[in-house]
């Protein structure tokens, strides 16, 4: 009993801080999502109405919200596998014994992660410029007509995906390198003696050994990509034709631009529920994969 009380004493400050700065805001936001808190309510609290789940209902009937959700899912569905593929490939290359100047490449590939989105987006905007961009210039040399990368509703999202993948893969790459380095070398030696090819070594040693890392990376990336905001905010401002508006961008507009705080809180909760479902699914898949 005494030990227990001591334990509580040690844990209490942390719990208090977590409670105060995590749960209270979350509960407050949920409360706000049940009202029509907006500029009028900010001016005079008597203008606040309790609306129950009307915000959620409205959002679920709002084509703009579904569009934003669609764009986000598109971004996650294309971006997460691409990002993992890029980072794993880079990690494998950097981990290979044949690689030279490893520290240099490690730094170079990690550099985009630590540079600011805004500066990088400006440069990419130039690279993807319809008439003066290098990308179209390079494509024109193989006979491809200029593409309006950021101005065509069909191309804007793929361009942003490319940018985001390029910007972020270095982070996962570092985690993968750590994962690769923890695989015992003697497993590979044994496999080579048994005559396993490179592909077989990857398939039967590297891949299963990386499974926990892969689960971690995919969950982190997924959570990060669901919160897509800065890239479209800087590169396209949600355009053209709102084709790059993500859920978070939508929430930002609702909450901070138009001050419809109630509605914005509801968006945040819907996004939370969605991410929670996907993360649970990933965990379940990960566990199932681990058991078999």
């Amino acid at each position: 009993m005494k030990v227990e009380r001591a334990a509580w004493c040690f844990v209490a400050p942390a719990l208090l801080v977590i409670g105060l700065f995590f749960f209270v805001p979350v509960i407050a936001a949920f409360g706000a999502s049940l009202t029509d808190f907006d500029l009028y309510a900010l001016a005079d609290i008597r203008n606040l109405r309790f609306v129950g789940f009307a915000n959620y209902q409205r959002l679920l009937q709002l084509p703009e919200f579904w569009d934003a959700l669609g764009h986000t899912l598109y971004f996650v569905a294309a971006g997460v596998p691409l990002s993992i593929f890029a980072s794993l490939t880079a990690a494998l290359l950097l981990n290979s014994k044949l690689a030279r100047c490893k520290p240099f490449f490690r730094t170079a590939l990690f550099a985009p992660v630590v540079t600011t989105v805004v500066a990088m987006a400006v440069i990419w905007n130039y690279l993807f410029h319809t008439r003066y961009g290098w990308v179209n210039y390079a494509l024109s040399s193989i006979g491809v007509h200029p593409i309006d990368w950021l101005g065509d509703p069909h191309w804007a999202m793929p361009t942003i995906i490319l940018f985001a993948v390029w910007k972020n893969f270095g982070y996962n790459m570092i985690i993968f390198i750590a994962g690769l380095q923890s695989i015992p070398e003697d497993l590979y030696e044994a496999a080579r003696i048994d005559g396993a090819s490179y592909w077989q070594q990857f398939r039967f040693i590297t891949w299963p050994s990386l499974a926990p890392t892969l689960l971690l990376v995919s969950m982190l990336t997924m959570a990060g990509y669901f919160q897509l905001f800065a890239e479209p905010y800087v590169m396209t401002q949600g355009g053209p034709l709102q084709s790059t508006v993500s859920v978070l961008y939508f929430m930002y507009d609702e909450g901070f631009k138009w001050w419809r705080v109630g509605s914005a809180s509801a968006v945040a909760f819907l996004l939370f529920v969605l991410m929670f479902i996907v993360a649970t699914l990933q965990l379940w898949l990960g566990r199932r994969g681990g058991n078999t």
Partner: protein
Amino acid sequence: MRPKKPISVCRSSHWRFLSIALTLIYALLTACKSEQPQQQVIKFWTIGAEGDAVIKLLPEFERQHPGVHVDVQQIPLTAALEKLLTGVAGNATPDISQLGNTWLPELVMLQALEPLDARIAASNQVKRDDYFSGIWDTNVIDAQIYGVPWYVDTRLLFYRRDLLAQAGINTPPQNWQEWRSSLIAIKALVGPQRYSILLPLNEFEPLLALAIQQDEPLLRDGDRYGNFRSAGFKRALSFYVEMFQNTWAPTMTNTQIANVWNEFGRGFYSYYISGPWNIGEFQRRLPPEQQKTWMTAPLPGPNGPGAGLAGGSSLVIFQNSKHKELAWQLIEFLSDPAIQLRFHTDTGDLPPRRSTWTDPGLNSDVYAHAFRDQLERLKPTPKVPEWESIAQQIRLVAERAVHGDLTIDQAAELLDQHTDEILEKRRWILDRGAKP
């Protein structure tokens, strides 16, 4: 003499240290206190480029008001409204601020701004009759005035004189019919790779400038509902969409054109609907030999010179300010015609007072002529706090119409539907008999 109480050396050194420390702290505190009434700081928020220009004017104000320091904070335009609203919500507003005049209704509704009627009535400097009425009017809400116009923006035509002449047009268009035929002529001249006019799809102002020229108001029933199904708005939207459908205008946003000034110089487009800040930009960015090739003209209306948007910025004082009197003196200082003229020279922003325009320099500025002309025909946009949000909807719906997703009728209907939804709370408040 009282006998000294024996105390240990250690204790006494402690006490001495403490007393010295206390004296020092006291001295510091009183020093700060005595400094306070002499150095007064006025917090001044500016938006965009105006901040740089105003900093150059302030030393003179500080010289006239010894002991006053104006602390200027520059906010980027794209984040300004959010920052102002957050400031109001968090009770962290400055003493005085530059404020886009379409944002005024929002801040007035939040009761963040100080009414200025009494100060203006008593002022020798700020004279209502000297201001262009359209721009003054944007600062009046429910017969109370909340801001003093600082500079005016109205959008009109910048055009390439030489290209128009090559297309056989020697005077800028006066009405939509003439404008239309000049757009056709230019397009025929420049071919498929270049355009007659630039209407950036991420700006709502060009379309709004056409819409404001119509007789019908943009909102109806005491600003309770959208009025975009009116014949006037549909006429404006049709003309706007027509310019894209006939490829007189490129379906592009500003972000896709690396440099609007260079492209104008290259003849990528011959007409550009924009504001006075671009006079300076074109003068700076186009080579000297090209300076004679461009000119400004009032926006053509449906039948003759049209009304213009009354944009621009006002100077406002916040209710929470502790230096309202000083802030007002700063407004008076910045409203002085001589100061406004210097401000104009630095920024290109147009002065809102007629007396500033009598200056021979400004009066003889050929590029400013068209603006001076249009300033007498300014019309404010609806004064509801939701206006920014509605303007954004106008842009979004117009963009879809331009891309062919919506017909004019569908676009107008959708716009009314969105607007009515946005104004729902306003109606609720008005119906309760409260003041929004």
